[in-house]
């Protein structure tokens, strides 16, 4: 059975690269005594996949990994099996890579990596790094005019040199909220938009430039596309897919 675990990433461990986060969880899963499934062969590894890799230095409130398990842990008092898994991971974890929830995935759920279509972010300017000429009150107008463009071409560094891409179709939402931006953008493997790249384009549209490391980016959540009732498609958080198995009868009776 497949279980999806949601976790956060914050504090100094933001500087741990994606591959090392994977290595971290491989060990944490073993320490937590989770009955994870291994591949066969001479160098068996855990069946574990991660949704959209997070850049070094970024924080996140919604990261996901899917693991295949043979069995769920026996539920501890007052917790579901999924809740027990979360608790155990946190008991043997480091601060800043906290498990938030676990859910059992339906058999037909796509894997965490492949199903990602979008991600949401909050973006703030770091202390003392507001661009020259920036005005909170004018933010809405700037964003409006920025999004009104038919095309937003930017230069993107790729393996095969510099390429021009159009950001506009991948921006699903961009707004200014009190002290920072909210962004919902394409995070699929083919069209991933980096928040910094987008904000640079926005500022340059307003005639401003961004200093290096001027932004503090927190990924809020990661989404997949799902059919909604009326035949259109909507974004659904990866954390909403699947279910936490119901608390057993006995446990319910124990509750006041």
């Amino acid at each position: 059975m497949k279980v999806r675990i949601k976790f956060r990433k914050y504090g100094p461990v933001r500087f741990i690269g994606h591959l090392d986060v994977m290595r971290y969880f491989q060990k944490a899963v073993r320490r937590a005594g989770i009955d994870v499934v291994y591949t066969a062969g001479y160098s068996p590894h855990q069946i574990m996949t991660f949704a959209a890799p997070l850049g070094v230095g970024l924080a996140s409130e919604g990261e996901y990994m899917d693991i295949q398990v043979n069995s769920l842990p026996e539920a501890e008092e007052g917790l579901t099996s999924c809740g027990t898994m979360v608790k155990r991971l946190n008991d043997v974890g480091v601060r800043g890579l906290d498990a938030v929830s676990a859910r059992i995935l339906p058999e037909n759920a796509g894997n965490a990596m492949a199903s990602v279509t979008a991600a949401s972010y909050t973006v703030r300017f770091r202390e003392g790094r507001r661009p020259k000429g920036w005005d909170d009150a004018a933010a809405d107008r700037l964003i409006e005019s920025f999004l009104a463009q038919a095309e937003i071409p930017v230069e993107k560094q790729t393996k095969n040199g510099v390429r021009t891409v159009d950001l506009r179709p991948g921006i699903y939402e961009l707004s200014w909220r009190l002290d920072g931006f909210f962004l919902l953008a394409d995070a699929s493997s083919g069209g991933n938009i980096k928040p910094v790249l987008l904000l640079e384009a926005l500022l340059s549209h307003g005639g401003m430039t961004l200093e290096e490391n001027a932004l503090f980016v927190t990924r809020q959540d990661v989404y997949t596309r799902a059919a909604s009732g009326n035949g259109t498609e909507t974004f659904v958080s990866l954390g909403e897919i699947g279910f936490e198995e119901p608390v057993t009868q006995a446990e319910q009776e124990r509750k006041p």
Partner: protein
Amino acid sequence: MCEKLALSEDILMQIEKPERYIGCEYNSVVKDPAKVRVRFAMCFPDVYEIGMSHLGIQILYHMLNDMPDVWCERVYSPWVDLDAIMRQQKIPLFALESQDPVKSFDFLGITVQYEMCYTNILQILDLSGIPLNAAQRGDDCPIVIGGGPCTYNPEPLADFFDLFYIGEGETQYRNLLDLYLECKDRGLDRREFLLRAAAEIPGMYAPAFYEASYREDGTLKSFVPTEERVPRKVRKEIVDHMSEAPYPVKPVVPFIKVTQDRVVLEIQRGCIRGCRFCQAGQIYRPVRERDVKTLQGYARELLKNTGQEEISLSSLSSSDYSGLQELVNFLMEECAGSHTNISLPSLRIDAFSLDVMSKIQDVKKSSLTFAPEAGSQRLRDVINKGLTEEVILNGARLAFEGGWTRVKLYFMLGLPTETLEDIQGIAQLCNKIAALFYETVPKEKRVNGRVQIVASTSFFVPKPFTPFQWAKQCTKEEFLEKAYQTRTAIGSQLNQKSIKYNWHEADASVMEGILARGDRRLCEVIRRVYEKGSVFDAWGEYYDNARWLETMKECGLSPDFYTRERPLDELLPWDFIDCGVSKDFLRREWEKAKREETSENCRVKCQGCGAAGFGCGICAVART
């Protein structure tokens, strides 16, 4: 806990592997600074991935942190990218756990594992803002204390350390810290503490209280204490009951892949074998085993506490451990269901080890390792390497029958008494092994078509406290000539296509030898070389040999003086250290070597080396 960072976002985003500097690893220890009395920074002066792989540091880290009034943290060398930034922006070096500046600590402990890290020691002091010379340190500086194998000749580092701890760290740290606290409470100064430590605590050597004088020819004339209370000889400290000694069953689990990316089970300390070039074989005497049952418990706990996917045995010569079969069988059973790999380094190739290896690794991909060290039986007798050609060929035959096709062989060039014939012996031995493969394995069964033999040579470096401590070391030109002869000899073998040959850099080996057998006058060289920009000398790409040579010249010192053969009656810079093994024994072994006579190992027959004086380990058990 895991909140503070000494480095800014800008720096962390700009350097390679920022994970080296953030701490926060699982099992790292964080304490409330207000509730401890001693802050200890434990340093391995090399990059994080190397330093984190060292068991000794983990042992002391956990031992010290088990003391409620002590907080021990880790420090490693900032890599060259961060080093440059720290200098430019004047950022003081910090310890990983608290991210607090090292200079604010009570102690800075530095383990000295190889000679080529000496400039890194100065880097650590310098970046911490601690004066390089101990004599210039005030009460605002931590006590800088060194330990590890190189401190069996601490003289080339004498200026830079307040104290050296000679021997195994487990025994005297509590006493040292208690003395420190007492001196602090009574308001005594640094010098008074150091003097009392040197005078009262076994194993402590405070270089400031000793004076060296030299003859006109540069040799040491005298080496004496300048203070009445300190001992003329410093005797190494050792753990006498290994099974009762502390063991780090909750080792720190790094985020990044480090060199030793696994849990480590130290099964014994010391070695019974006495190969005459080997320093470890002498300074860790006598061999002391840990109890199998205790080790089984450690293995379980280590795996559970770390989640690591591999466990490795650690010792100088695992095959000599008396409980090996029992332990290995236990590990195989324990690991079978849990997807845990076992790694067994330093095993002798025989029926037992081949059987075990065939069960735990992919035979097709793994290789066999032999370390004959010398190419001919004559020279193997000189160095007392009890590995005969027959044993090697038998092991290889068994292995080929079992499906192995890769063999690695390690040799040394430049050993005392070596001749061209011995060097040719290397090539012949490789050739015989290759021929044996084609003889043993029928054509249709040859998995990869042919056998792959990799012969590697390193250059012999005479080390203190070995029977070869008096021997002459080759020059760079001699070394390279020998490597060339080896290559030519291999090239003329029938099976040369199956043999690959690698050799080490000669430059660094010569300098390693100079530092290993050096005296106090080299402190000046090390300091100047460092000030000219040398650091990470152990990393080939950063080693600047010309700079070292030029600096030696500036200081009026010649490499030849340090690499020459030393007469038996010469006072050696490390003679004031008593490592348990007597000079008399080493001399006997040196003479036997020249007569091509071997000595039995400790298990077969005691050679009366002197280590029995410790009253423990193999010296204290009856021989069968």
